[in-house]
C-alpha cells in the first residue's frame, strides 16, 4: 500500500500557512480578477481626445457637436481657437476640428466642401478615424437636408399645395430617423463573426481574464516551488538516507501542491463560468487542470537547476514573463506573425488560448511535463 503520510503532512502544512494559501489562491485567482477587471475597464475607457471649435454657432453646428460628443470612443473639448492650438501643441488632444462660419448655410445649399477644417500635429494618430466619424455625421446632416429638399421639390413639381416648412421638417426628421439605431444597410460585421465562431472564441482568450489566469497560475506554480531550493541542500541529503527516500518525498510534496493548484483551477473555472468568461465544459476544465500540471513540471525542473533562492525568484519571474508573452498570456501574440503562431504552439498557454488549428495535442504536453518531472527528480537526486 502506498504510504501517503508525507502528502497529508504537506497538505496540513500548506493549510496552516497563510502565505502559501495566498500564493496558491490569491495570486492566480484574485490577481486575475482584479487585473482583468482593470484591463477590461481600461479598454472601455480608451477614448481619443479631440478639440472642436464652433465658429458657426448655428443649430446644425451645435447638433454636430452634440452628436460627436456622444460618440463612445471620443472625448471632446469644446474650446476657442487659441486654446485648441495650445492643447494640440501640448498633445492634450489628438486633433482639432474647426466648424467654419457659414456651416449651416452651406449645408442647406447642398455644399459640403471646406465646411470643416482639421488641425493636426506630427503626433496625431487617430485623426483619420475622427475625420471619418465627423464626415459621417456631416453626411447625415447633408442627406437629411437633401432628402427634405427633394420631398418639397416633388410636391412642388406635382403642383400639390403643402405647407413647405412643415413638410420640409417632417421629411428632414423622417430621414434623420433612418440613422437610428444605426444607418440603413449597415453591414453586420460583428454578427456574422459571432455566428461563425462565437462559442469557440469565448474560450480562446478573447477576454483578458483567461489570458491573465494562465500568467498568474504559472507565476504561482513557480513561487510555490521555492521549497525545493530551500530544502535541496542538507534536507534532501538526509531524506535520501531514509526508508521512503527522496523520490517519494518529491512526488508526495509536489503532489500535495498540485492538489491545491487543481482546487484553485476548479474554483477559477467555476467563477469564470459564472461571470460568463468561459463556457463551463468538462473538456475545458480538464485542460485547465493540465495547465498547472505542466507549469509545476516546468517550475520543479527550473528549481532543480537553481542554487540561490534570490536568483530563483528573479529567473522565475523573467521566465514566466517571457513564456507569458510568447505563449499569449498578455495579448494574442500569434496574430502578429506566422512564426510567432508556430512558436506559441510549444508553450503551455496553447492548451487554453489557441484554437484547434494551432493546438498541440494535450497528451504531448502531459508527456513533456512528465519527462521534465523525471529529469528534475534525477537531477535533484544526483546534484547535492
Amino acid at each position: 500500500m502506498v504510504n501517503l503520510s508525507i502528502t497529508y503532512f504537506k497538505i496540513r502544512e500548506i493549510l496552516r500557512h497563510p502565505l502559501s494559501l495566498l500564493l496558491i489562491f490569491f495570486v492566480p485567482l484574485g490577481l486575475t480578477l482584479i487585473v482583468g477587471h482593470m484591463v477590461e475597464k481600461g479598454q472601455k475607457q480608451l477614448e481619443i481626445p479631440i478639440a472642436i471649435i464652433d465658429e458657426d454657432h448655428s443649430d446644425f453646428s451645435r447638433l454636430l457637436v452634440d452628436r460627436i460628443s456622444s460618440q463612445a470612443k471620443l472625448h471632446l473639448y469644446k474650446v476657442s481657437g487659441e486654446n485648441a492650438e495650445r492643447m494640440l501643441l501640448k498633445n492634450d488632444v489628438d486633433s482639432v476640428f474647426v466648424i467654419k462660419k457659414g456651416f449651416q448655410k452651406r449645408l442647406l445649399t447642398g455644399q459640403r466642401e471646406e465646411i470643416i477644417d482639421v488641425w493636426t500635429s506630427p503626433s496625431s494618430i487617430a485623426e483619420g478615424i475622427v475625420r471619418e466619424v465627423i464626415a459621417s455625421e456631416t453626411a447625415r446632416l447633408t442627406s437629411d437636408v437633401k432628402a427634405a429638399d427633394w420631398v418639397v421639390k416633388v410636391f412642388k413639381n406635382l403642383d400639390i399645395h403643402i405647407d413647405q416648412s412643415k413638410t420640409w421638417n417632417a421629411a428632414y426628421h423622417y430621414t434623420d430617423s433612418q440613422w437610428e439605431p444605426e444607418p440603413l444597410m449597415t453591414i453586420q460585421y460583428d454578427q456574422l463573426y459571432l455566428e461563425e465562431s462565437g462559442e469557440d472564441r469565448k474560450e480562446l482568450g478573447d477576454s483578458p481574464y483567461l489570458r491573465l489566469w494562465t500568467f498568474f497560475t504559472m507565476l504561482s506554480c513557480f513561487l510555490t516551488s521555492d521549497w525545493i531550493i530551500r530544502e535541496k541542500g542538507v534536507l534532501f541529503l538526509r531524506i535520501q538516507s531514509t526508508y521512503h527516500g527522496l523520490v517519494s518525498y518529491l512526488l508526495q510534496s509536489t503532489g500535495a501542491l498540485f492538489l491545491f493548484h487543481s482546487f484553485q483551477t476548479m474554483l477559477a473555472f467555476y467563477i469564470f463560468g459564472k461571470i460568463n468568461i468561459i463556457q463551463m465544459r468538462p473538456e475545458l476544465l480538464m485542460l485547465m487542470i493540465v495547465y498547472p500540471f505542466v507549469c509545476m513540471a516546468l517550475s520543479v525542473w527550473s528549481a532543480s537547476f537553481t542554487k540561490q533562492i534570490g536568483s530563483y525568484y528573479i529567473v522565475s519571474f523573467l521566465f514566466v514573463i517571457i513564456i507569458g508573452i510568447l505563449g499569449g498570456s498578455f495579448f494574442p501574440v500569434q496574430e502578429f506573425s506566422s512564426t510567432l503562431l508556430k512558436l506559441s504552439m510549444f508553450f503551455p498557454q496553447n492548451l487554453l488560448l489557441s484554437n484547434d488549428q494551432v493546438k498541440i495535442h494535450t497528451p504531448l504536453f502531459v508527456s513533456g511535463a512528465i519527462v521534465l518531472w523525471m529529469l528534475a527528480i534525477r537531477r535533484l537526486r544526483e546534484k547535492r
Partner: protein
Amino acid sequence: MDACDSEVKRKAMIQIENVSKYYGKKPSLQGVTLKIEKGEVFGVLGPNGAGKSTLLSILSTISKPAAGRVEINGLDLKKQAKLVREQIGYVPQDVALWEHLTVKDNLIFWSKFSKQRVSKEELYELCRTVRLEEKWNEKVSSLSGGMKRKLNIAAALIHNPDILLMDEPTVGIDIQSKLEINQYIRDLACHGKTIVYSTHDMSEILSLCNRIGVLKSGVLQFSGTIAEAREMVKRKGFLPNSDEKLIYFLLQSERAEKPLP
C-alpha cells in the same frame, strides 16, 4: 567508554571491502577496507577533503561506491539499499531540520520517512532524552545552535536504527552542548548502537571512540584502537608524549601500514 563493552555482543555491523569513489576523475576514496563492530564508536579522522563525508554518504546510501562492496548488518548496500536505510540513522554535517516547524512537527515529519509507525508519545520520549521536552512546541528557528544539533541527532534516532552515522555532529556549538551530546552518544553505544563518527576534534575522538580510522586523500592510513596506533607509531621510531600528538602524527604521515582489518 569501555565500561559497557561486555554488555554487547561483538558482531560486524559494517563491512567495507575495497571501496572506491570518484568525483569526475578525482578519487575521493581509494580501496578502503574496514570492519566496524556492534556497539562500537568508530571515529573517522582526516583533514578537509580526505573523504570522511564521502565514506559516510556511501554508508548512508546517499551515494554509490564506484567499486568495492559494503555490507550493513548483513545486507548488501547496493542491492538492498532500502532495507539498509531502516538500519541506519544519518546525522548530516549541517542541521537538517525545517526551521519554520516546531520541534514536535519536525520529529513527526521525520517519522513519516521511516517504515514503522512512531507514536507521538515515543517522539516526546525521544525529545526528553535529548533534553528538549521544554521546547516541544517551539519553532526550530528559535532554538540555540546546541539545541538544534541535539534535535538533529534525535531526528536520526526516530526509527531506532542499529547504526548511527554522524558527520561532524557537534561542529560549531558550545562546550556544554558538546559534552551533553558526547555523553548521549556514549549512552547510545552502551545500548548497542554502532556509531560511525566523523570529526576534526581530537578531544572528542579520544573521549568517545573505541577505534579510529584515519583518512588522507581518500586512502585509509590507519584503522585500529589508540593503543594500536601508539604501538605502530612506536615501531616507526616516533614517541608522542600525548594522544593528541599521536593523532597529529597519524594525520601527517603517509600510509603507515596495511590497515588493520
